[in-house]
């Protein structure tokens, strides 16, 4: 709606931004979907031998981080800046722990190399692409955390916080599909 008062109102702008963000996620989901299909195409009903305990630990950390992300965003919506900063910090720490678990440990102890076979190729591609998204999410959260610390957001206006949170949940949901695809489905081949 082009009337100058409406189109420049924050609420209108916010709804527009939301649609843009969700379309971006839809687009991104196609890429992750392509990776998922690659896994099904090349691995079929088999899977590689991976460290189950480690897989469970990193998955739990990512899921729990989403809980703290939600707490943080709710705190912001209620004007509780301290709560927001605390929740976001926990999320960031858990996200970095997830990265350390996947890249620092799982990548090192995996029983195959990048170039060994299709197991290596798909495993490193899927986890790598997801880890890249977690990393960007962490950077995004750090920016938001820093700006919140300096009082840049208010109860009414905190679109960046919302966007970071939605993006974080999205990356989390992707892992909910990737974890079983990599660790659980199929016979060990």
């Amino acid at each position, binding site marked *: *709606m*082009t009337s100058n008062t409406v189109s420049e109102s924050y609420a209108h702008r916010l709804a527009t931004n939301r*649609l843009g963000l969700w379309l971006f996620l*839809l687009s991104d989901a196609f*890429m992750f979907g392509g990776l998922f299909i*690659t896994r099904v195409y*090349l691995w079929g009903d088999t899977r590689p031998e991976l460290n189950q305990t480690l897989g469970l630990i990193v998955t739990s950390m990512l899921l729990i981080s989403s809980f703290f992300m939600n707490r943080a965003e709710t705190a912001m919506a209620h004007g509780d800046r301290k709560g927001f900063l605390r929740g976001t910090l926990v999320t960031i720490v858990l996200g970095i722990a997830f990265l350390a678990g996947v890249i620092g440990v799982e990548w090192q102890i995996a029983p195959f190399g990048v170039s060994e076979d299709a197991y290596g*190729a798909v495993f490193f591609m899927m986890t790598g692409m997801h880890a890249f998204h977690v990393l960007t999410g962490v950077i995004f959260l750090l920016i938001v955390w820093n700006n919140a610390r300096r009082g840049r957001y208010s109860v009414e206006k905190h679109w960046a916080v919302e966007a970071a949170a939605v993006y974080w949940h999205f990356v989390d949901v992707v892992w909910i599909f990737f974890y079983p695809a990599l660790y659980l489905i199929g016979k060990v081949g």
Partner: protein
Amino acid sequence: MSKKTNFLSLGLVRGVFAMLVGMPLGMGLVTLIRLAVGLPAWNAEPAWVVGGLVGAVAFMIGVGSLSDWFKLAAGGELPEHPAGAVNGWARYFNFTLDHKVIGVQYGVLSLLMFSIAGLFALIFRTELVQTGLQYLNADEFNTLISLHGIVMIMAILLGVAAMSNYLTPLMIGANDMAFPRLNSFAFWINVPSGIFLLSSLFLGGFDTGWTGYPPLSVRAPLGIQMFFLGVYLFGLSSILGALNIIVTVVRLRAPGMTFFRMPIFVWSAFATALISATATQLIALSFQMVMFQRLFGMGFFDPARGGNVLLFQHLFWFYSHPAVYVFVLTGLGTISELLPVFVRKPLFGYRWVAVSSLGIALIGFFVWAHHMFTSGMSEFLRVPFMYSTLLVAVPTGVKFFSWVATMWRGKMSFETPMLFVLGAISIFLVGGLSGPPNAVVATDLHLHDTYFIVGHFHATMFGGFVFPFMAAVYFWFPKVTGRMFNERLGKLHFWLMFPAFFVQSFGQMFIGLFGMRRRIADYDPALGFEQPNWLITIAGMVIALSVLIFFINLVYSTKRGPVAVANPWRSRSPEWLLPSPIPEHNYPQPLEIVGEPYDYGLVGSVFVRIPSTAVIEEPVK
């Protein structure tokens, strides 16, 4: 007006300088990492890939596209409508938020890429006039056909973006796109993309064709990495641009402009954007996997290690087939938009035409494997994909019948844009009718990888995009520049290009039917194809000549053309309510939508008006 513009203050120039600094930095970074992990310091492939990526980011910083976002990340506030910093011609070389300037930027870059890709075609077409290799070797030939393909695709995507950027906000009564900064970013990322694509010429080229199938692409020279990078970047542009179009159409329509009162072009831009925003990811993924197989030795497409080359083809065609609908939907939308103006009759079956665009977009997602009938994929997949492909003819047929019914008993006039619209319809008919033989498995097994496909494809592209694009350029030229083009040169352009195209396309289909393989540098003289190949090449040169006339017309008329009247085509579309060229923030007041968009010839009917200022009313005869 701004201060005197000097060369170094242009965003483009700063971007290129930044890129020249960024690329060696990226290469140095790779070398340092390689040294740190104990690998030999220099390896050309990773150095060029990372160098290219860093160079592209540096370009975007240099051009000024990222500054606002950096400011935002650092906690700053951004104004919604910053005052235009640069005026005059210089703004076309700078980061700008005005969708009309960005549309023109896209258009000019598109025409430039068209010319380059066309030039490549002339070079290898001339080689094909005689059997034997005269002045190209096989590698050069292969690189040229590959680049012709991909640079053309880029040019078409740029042309699509040019039209949808310039027209969509105007037609729905918005003052700009929903995300102007993203819009500008999506344009400028194409510049490094084009540089990478063309730089592959100097890095060994690539002999895979634009499809880049493994295993060939895994073994191709270094040039293929630059090709991948280039596609990656313009794919990103395509995704972000499409996202912007969708949000703009959904959120920024003028009050009263319901979906079924939007100009039909907006419908096609919307349907196009739905494809671009989603499917593009898959071509990027497929190319990235080949890139990684080359860089890290990952075995995606190596059967010896449990990989499968067919996976690439599935992922690749999941985008690359819908991509042709990205091209033609925009073109067909332009035809439906312009035809009623020159026929002075309502567009027949407006709703059906609107929905048919969505139909084509939707079906387009389920047809990709018709490119793979001979690939060795599971045979049971052939028939379903045959039927889904044939189904595309239904919504396409809706458009055809609508055009014919719109023209029926209309008061046609034949100005240059109308000539191109009619040319587009007839050429697209040939392109469309030559489609089903490729979709039906039995005939495709014979036609696959022959020149018949080349002829079919060029007919769909010329009818579905090139001719409508030309029509659009002529039609909106007075809107963009405020001046009129030379009608005589425009007609000359048409009457050279139109017959030459038919000679070229029918010639290609003809030799294809008789067994000329596509993508080959040489053929057996006993086949007797020298004469038809000679004809096709001459026709190609005539097309090139006509395009040269087109360029001369554009450049000359932009400077010297007579000042255009307010609404030279008596169009009802809202952009013609505004002065030409259009001021920076389009509409001084919100539009009022009071009628139907295509009621041409209905006395006294009105589509839109700007309250108390301007109105376009159908006159009494």
